């Protein structure tokens, strides 16, 4: 494991909002290139990056739009940079085609979406969690994605570093699904010493030019990279391609490539997934949540426990890949899942699929603009427990 560069890391205790903490996470992770287009409520991330990056060494480009932003970071990654872009719903939609390109070209990159209410321009300054399915399925074709959901400015910092590490390890776009509440909430953020921050280095080939095949893989199904201009023959294409990176239009090559793009993540789900459980040992009811909603849920669960109800909490720090096996096993032991989300029912569909009728699944939708009333979650817990 490599360690963070002390010159990039703002070691100490700070009072930061989630957007600024995300920027510091990116800097600690060694991010040296952001291309972005400002959009509320994400703009503070790039504002801080633009201010900080000249002192650290790197580039910020304000692009003409979000399509250009995602495209620029993919190119910069192939040129050797550690890259990120930042947006909110409407910009996220514009990025979708080339998020698929990032997945197809196995390009390590981080995409931050500070979610606001939608659809369309919706509620620019107010919260939503309705881009969760889009994060997974937004680009066409079969691919897998990794997406993380911080619940505090502190986690906006730590999970942004983790996003960079996962992007490098699995050579894939990784999404940080912030939300307006966390982005604009200010709390203490502790940034550790640089030498205690572990960073995953880029998978570079050790093969000499001439022997290197850009998309040849070993058992872990993840190819090693060569950066443009380093002497290796270099060809990448969005078309279905073979180990050399050349387009091949055949069912056989398609089968091999698509399986690999998906399985390199699917087969490592248990290793990738981060979740936090509390009081599940004797729980009848589990409240499953992510992002800001998990903090509202926690208040409701605390109230329910005071009333003597057997209720536990499950918080997903990793939203994608979804922890299928874990939910399937948990569904054998509990009566019901209560799933509050700031949308009209998205991740609940995954919970329902994995519970497969073995436990009841109760959606608590909230359309956005603010968070759930904890009393509504408490009431659902009481009904589920009775």
């Amino acid at each position, binding site marked *: 494991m490599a360690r963070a560069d002390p010159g990039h890391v703002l070691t100490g*205790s*700070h*009072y930061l909002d989630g957007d600024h903490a995300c920027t510091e996470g990116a800097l600690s992770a060694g991010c040296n290139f952001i291309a972005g287009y400002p959009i*509320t*409520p994400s703009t503070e991330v790039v504002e801080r990056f633009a201010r900080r990056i000249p002192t650290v060494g790197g580039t910020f480009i304000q692009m003409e739009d979000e399509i250009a932003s995602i495209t620029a970071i993919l190119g910069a990654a192939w040129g050797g940079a550690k890259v990120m872009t930042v947006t909110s719903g409407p910009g996220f939609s514009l990025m979708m085609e080339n998020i698929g390109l990032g997945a197809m070209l196995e390009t390590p990159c981080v995409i931050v979406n500070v979610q606001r209410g939608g659809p369309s321009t919706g509620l620019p*300054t*107010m919260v939503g969690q309705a881009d969760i399915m889009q994060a997974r399925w937004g680009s066409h074709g079969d691919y897998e994605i990794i997406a993380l959901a911080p619940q505090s400015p502190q986690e906006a910092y730590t999970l942004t570093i983790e996003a960079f590490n996962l992007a490098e390890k699995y050579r894939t776009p990784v999404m940080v699904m912030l939300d*307006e*509440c966390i982005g*604009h*909430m*200010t*709390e*203490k953020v502790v940034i550790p010493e640089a030498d205690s921050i572990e960073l995953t280095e880029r998978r570079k080939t050790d093969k000499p030019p001439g022997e290197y095949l850009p998309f040849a893989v070993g058992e872990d199904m993840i190819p090693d990279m060569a950066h443009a201009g380093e002497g290796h023959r270099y060809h990448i294409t969005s078309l279905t391609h073979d180990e050399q990176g050349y387009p091949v239009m055949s069912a056989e090559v398609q089968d091999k490539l698509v399986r690999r793009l998906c399985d390199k993540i699917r087969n490592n789900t248990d290793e990738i997934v981060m979740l936090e459980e509390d009081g599940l040992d004797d729980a009848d009811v589990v409240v499953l949540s992510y992002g800001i909603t998990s*903090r*509202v849920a*926690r*208040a409701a669960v*605390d109230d329910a426990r005071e009333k003597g109800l057997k209720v536990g909490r499950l918080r997903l720090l990793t939203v994608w890949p979804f922890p299928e096996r874990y939910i399937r096993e948990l569904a054998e032991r509990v009566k019901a899942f209560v799933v509050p989300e700031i949308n009209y029912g998205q991740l609940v569909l995954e919970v329902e699929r994995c519970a497969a009728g073995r436990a009841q699944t109760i959606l608590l939708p909230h359309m956005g603009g603010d*968070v759930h009333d*904890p009393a509504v979650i408490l009431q659902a817990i009481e009904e589920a427990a009775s």
Partner: protein
Amino acid sequence: MPRREIRITGYGGQGIILTGYIFGKAAAIFDDRYSTMTQSFGPEARGSACASALVVDEEVIAYPYLRQTDVLIALSREGYEKYIDELNQDGGILIYDQDMVEPQELKGTIKMYGVPAARLAEELGKRIVQNIVVVGFATAATQLVAKDAARKAVESSVPEALIDLNLQAFEKGYEYFDN
């Protein structure tokens, strides 16, 4: 001290967000407690209504929003009228700029403390430090955070060239309450 919930309200340009930030920073960074500051993000601009909210606790804060306001700091009449009904009638504290807000007779056992913050700031030659006068005054009136923590938070949150002026404003507000 158990969980306390604070609403700060006024109009854009008065430093409402910075006031919340300073109290929050004082608690979380210099007073060894937890704090969460949130703010309403509407089409706010200089001169229009503006509010920030702060939760301070000894324990990790799960729910970050206000359920019942313990302290209301009102620097505009509009803000006072919008939020006064949220203030806990049982021991809540109202801090207000007495040149901007004329409180009605309040229900329950709400304690009221007025300060001519804008005037005191003008005495220092800069009306812009009105909010820091309020930080000093409210620190003394509410004991929300230790005085030393509040001073350090002010010092580390304002431009370096203006630290002395802001610390003077803080002391002026603090002493106004003591007197």
